[in-house]
């Protein structure tokens, strides 16, 4: 927006490549067409992204990634959000890979799966067993049970991102003795087979997942605490927030273009001061939200978990609010065409509605932030 938090030459170069690819690939026509395909995403583009190494940009080099860190990862989320790209990038290379990275220390299984996510042979999705948001005092919604020959998981997760066509579902399940552990569940082991949910956002697939003593393979040798799960949620919250600012930036820019060119009463709409002021307010809000998000990304890179615990819910909450406001203003400022399907503004709005439910609503994210700030986290 008004400022660009990316500053190094490397980052700017990667940005230009990413923007170039997403602009030419995820045109409005292709995005809409992909939504109608059986898998619900653009498989050609997704394969290209894998081949270009995007699934490994933020992943460590020793498991086949490029090791470029959270800022570049967030840049990709931002630009994919800006084009409403119908791909499983957020669910698989974002949420899934983060779970493997944060919850599993030094384990061959995790590395194997991470490498498969990077090279595109496996597409995964993440089901959080504490429910939405950050883990608190609620009863877990997914638990793990040891059985003779291994483990099963039981419970449910609603509206899981990119889960309808995933090969593997990563499940963060509660252990009976306390703590959490990461499991993988083969999609083929799920009964009933997850069906894609028809939601307002056609550019994205969701599924409700049911686990009923479903065979599951633990990843990693040991359990982790709620704090570690919170750290995972912090991480994916920042990724999602980066997508959110992408959505907000793109629809604001489209609106500015429209206001610069469309005339009414013999003047460009953009010359009307009341509209100008509203654009200024939106642009400032989006700019600042983006600063919050990329600042949180630097905290991931710096491994400053204390600051990240505050910065992540703050970024998610504010990016969410700003995205919603920006998409709503975009509809209004477009006038008549804004509420039709003939322009993409409505698609941004509907992506926003979905994104706001993915991890935590702004209200819930602020509540988490308050708990952290006052030291009242569990």
């Amino acid at each position: 927006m008004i400022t660009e938090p990316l500053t190094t030459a490397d980052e700017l170069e990667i940005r230009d490549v990413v923007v170039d690819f997403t602009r030419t690939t995820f045109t409005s026509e292709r995005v809409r067409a992909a939504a109608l395909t059986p898998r619900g995403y653009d498989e050609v583009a997704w394969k290209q992204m894998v081949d270009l190494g995007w699934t490994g940009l933020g992943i460590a080099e020793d498991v086949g990634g490029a090791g470029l860190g959270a800022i570049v990862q967030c840049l990709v989320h931002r630009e994919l959000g800006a084009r409403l790209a119908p791909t499983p990038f957020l669910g698989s290379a974002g949420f899934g890979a983060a779970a493997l990275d944060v919850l599993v220390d030094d384990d061959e299984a995790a590395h194997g799966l991470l490498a498969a996510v990077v090279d595109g042979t496996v597409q995964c999705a993440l089901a959080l067993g504490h429910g939405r948001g950050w883990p608190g005092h609620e009863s877990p919604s997914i638990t793990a049970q040891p059985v003779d020959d291994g483990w099963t998981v039981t419970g449910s997760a609603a509206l899981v991102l990119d889960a309808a066509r995933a090969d593997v579902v990563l499940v963060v399940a509660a252990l009976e003795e306390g703590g959490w552990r990461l499991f993988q569940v083969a999609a083929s082991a799920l009964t009933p087979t997850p069906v894609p949910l028809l939601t307002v956002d056609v550019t994205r697939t969701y599924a409700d997942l049911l686990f009923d003593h479903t065979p599951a393979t633990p990843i990693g040798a040991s359990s982790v605490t709620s704090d570690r799960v919170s750290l995972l949620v912090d991480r994916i919250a920042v990724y999602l927030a980066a997508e959110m600012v992408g959505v907000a930036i793109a629809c604001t820019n489209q609106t500015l273009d429209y206001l610069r060119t469309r005339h009414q009463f013999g003047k460009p709409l953009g010359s009307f001061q009341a509209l100008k002021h509203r654009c200024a307010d939106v642009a400032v809000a989006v700019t600042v939200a983006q600063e919050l998000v990329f600042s949180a990304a630097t905290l991931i890179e710096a491994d400053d978990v204390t600051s990240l615990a505050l910065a992540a819910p703050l970024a998610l909450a504010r990016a969410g609010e700003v995205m919603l406001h920006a998409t709503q203003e975009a509809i209004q400022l477009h006038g008549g065409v804004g509420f039709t399907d003939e322009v993409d503004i409505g698609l941004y709005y509907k992506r926003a509605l979905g994104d706001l439910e993915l991890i935590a609503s702004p209200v819930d994210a602020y509540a988490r932030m308050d708990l952290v700030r006052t030291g009242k986290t569990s």
Partner: protein
Amino acid sequence: MTSLDHQVLGPAFAQTPYDHPFRVELRAWLAEHPVDPEPLDQDARFRHRRDWHRTMAGNGWVGLHWPVEHGGRGVDPLTQFMYYEEVALAATPEPVNTPGLILLGPTLMAHGSAELKARFLPGILSGDEMWCQGFSEPDSGSDLASLRTRAELVGDEWIVNGQKIWTTFAQYADYCFVLCRTEAGSERHRGLTLLICPVDQDGVTVRPIRQISGDNEFSEVFLDDARVPKDWVVGEVGQGWSAAMTLFQFERGDQGYTDHARMLVHLLDCEDALRVAEADGTLTVDRAADARRVQRDLWVRIQELRHLNYRGAVLAKAGQELGAVGSMTNLVWGELEKDLGSAFAEASGARSLVLGRHDTHARLASRAASIYSGTSEIQRNIIAERLLGLPK
């Protein structure tokens, strides 16, 4: 102490008490005529509304504000105010054929010939003939006077060419009243004429516009040598702007247009949904508290709309100019409708992302509210310049 009326509709007004004989009579009739809730599918929804219109019309419960000579009851605006509150309380389908009932009918009574009145008013009232409004054009959204659709008198027919847009429910309409330029070379407000154009003819093509809600409530209407009988002119030839202004007065003056009572009834549903969502853990305690605060604010804002509507009815009853109140109600209504749509969905949290639900649909559909009946921005311009006297 509070009655259900007070809980839902709010404090009573002196002139429209909840035990008013008119309310009692209408409530009794409505109790005897239960009706299913509205379906989600748009076509089914329209049929459902039209059928209900006909049921009500058959019992004399449509167009009460029309004069007795035209089939109405000639009730005063305060009775009409109560009428809208009561049909909303009974959760009846939304009114249909309002372009005919609220706009063209009264305009015809004011400006139309005896022949046109006799020909069209009964069908509007009964719901046997459906109407739509052809004013907006692609390049004259908020600036109506820049319209370019033209009509030429050839023999005993007007030949109409041009394009209208944002025409509500054109696909279900039998007639469209079209504002067009009948004087070649005329500009702005001059040289316009208001014609009644049959929709079912070769020269008229209706292309519904898909909205973000998935509905097609609005259409483009293409007029390619569309034919209109010479005498189907509302008012005088060349005096279309004056007829249109009369028509807008009726739009702004109708106390049901900005339907506070339906909103209040919906808000009750919304409060129920919130209680369920909090109880079953769909919403966290914090989020539920936030939603409750939003709903309370909405109740207050709907009370405000209700007071404006009441004031409008009082002024109309006194025969006073309604333009001022109309611009305000339009603004207040549009912004409120959007926030109400969002609050509906918010009350059920993530569930309201899933298609096929009323709350999911209401949130998306409501985004049009502050645009299609004159944008909020235009209303604010009007209020500032015409009512507050701020310089152009």
